């Protein structure tokens, strides 16, 4: 069985964090991910960019309506997720609009944080392989 773990946080607090809390948070998450990796249960997990980088898509009567910002209304609940990889937000929005959920609910497209990895391409492949 696969499970989705959702992390809710106070974004304002997070954005104004100190370098100390940044580094302690980083090491706490690293430990947590190491533990999950050692247990063989981790499939994928990513930090999200702040909510103001989000775009919300609704398709009604065949028309695509985009709004900037996160999906904020409270009547609908999170029902699932996909992680896709495209070249630009245009393609991501296009795929988001094709999702069946866009026709009755809303689709929020939010960029993932990409961890910068210093070094040569070969090292990255090795690291990625090791984390699986």
């Amino acid at each position, binding site marked *: 069985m696969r499970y989705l773990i959702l992390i809710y946080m106070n974004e304002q607090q997070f954005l104004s964090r100190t370098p100390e809390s940044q580094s302690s948070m980083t090491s706490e998450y690293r430990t947590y991910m190491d533990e999950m990796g050692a247990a063989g249960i981790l499939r994928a997990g990513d930090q999200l960019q702040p909510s103001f980088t989000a775009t919300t898509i609704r398709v009604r009567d065949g028309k695509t309506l985009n709004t900037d910002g996160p999906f904020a209304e409270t009547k609908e609940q999170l029902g699932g997720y996909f992680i896709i990889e495209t070249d630009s937000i245009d393609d991501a929005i296009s795929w988001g609009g094709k999702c069946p959920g866009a026709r009755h609910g809303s689709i929020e497209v939010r960029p993932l944080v990409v961890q910068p*990895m210093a070094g040569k391409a070969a090292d990255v492949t090795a690291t990625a392989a090791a984390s699986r």
Partner: protein
Amino acid sequence: MMNAVDNALAAFYSGERVAVLATLIKSARGDFDAAEDALADAIARAVVRWPKDGVPERPGAWMLTVARRLLIDEARVDARRNASNSFAVWGTSTELVDENAEFEQSIEKDAAVVDDPLDVVHDERLALLYTCCHPSLSTNAQLTLALRTIGGLSVREISRALLEPEATTAQRLVRTKQKIREARVPFTIPSGTALHERNDVVRETLYLVFNEGYTPSEAGALRADVAGEAIRLARLLTVLTPGDPESLGLLALMLLHHARRSARIGDDGAIISLEEQDRTRWDRDAIQEGERLLDRAIALQKSGPYQLQAAIAALHATARTATETDWSQIAGLYGALRFYMPTPVVELNAAVALAMVLGPEWGLAQLDTLATERGMADYHLLPAARADLLRRAQRFDEALVAYNDAIRLTESSAEHRYLERRVSEVTARMQLR
């Protein structure tokens, strides 16, 4: 020497600035901040360097070359900073950052003798325009970014235009740029149907930028450079989509308004109404070009709001005197425009145009009905229009009250002076009786 430098810098600001900035944003892969910083740094270097070495033959090419070199330098610093301290806390997604980029060159050396890098910038300016107007950004975010990058307005000027605190504008700018960077909003001109779907928004934003130059919210002089840049981009838009009558209509409209720029403001800084402008000071070439563009648009046989507004502006621009204005045709065009734009300003103009045909008392009755509609209560042009009609109807006591209402509601100092002049005129007429 100093004068030559000042002139060259001023010419750069009102000429090639946007083209160079757009090219830099492209080089910085959509990072607006990095591009703006590099350009600001290049300008600072020009201020020091040009008085010593002389103004380069092609200032724009110099600026672009120097800023590009600074951008590469900046990118290297950023890569290091990213690796140590960034937003990133956790995640399985990774991306290679090349730390070994070599950077060894004198930044200003031979900056003016490079291959002409400004050859490709026409496309980049349009790419900048379409990126500012990307559908994943809110209308306010689009306008704020366009006023900043294309219009070259300061955060303070934008906050005044949008009637909001400076901190709000500043935060929106930061977040909009961050969204473009992090969500990979592409820095390109869209193709196919997406191009045409997005042109309505692009035209609207461009016209708002033009208006901010033409009728600035901030106290002070008209910003002919801002309006001029909007006209240049509208011209590029007509080259990109020559078969789109609304883009032709937009350019025609801008030119027909811009043609009146030197007659619109008096020596005292007050707005001069259309009726009282010295028509010999209107730019005939711009008017004729506007008319030709409008003819081309109409020949494409697809009506739209910009063509209608341009047609109205053309009727004003070609009337030899104010009394020869074809108000009945203008009223008809406003009637058609209401179908596309049911906004307070259009409703008001439609009523005022028809009042020129049917008389001020008819117009005042129309305005009373309009005043009860939603969104009209705080609209500063309503008491101003009322005051003008009351003045025409020789009801000076009431006109005085309405002019003072209008003064309280407007922020623009040029409009203030116009309204204050009307107050003293009406007061003088009252004393004559």
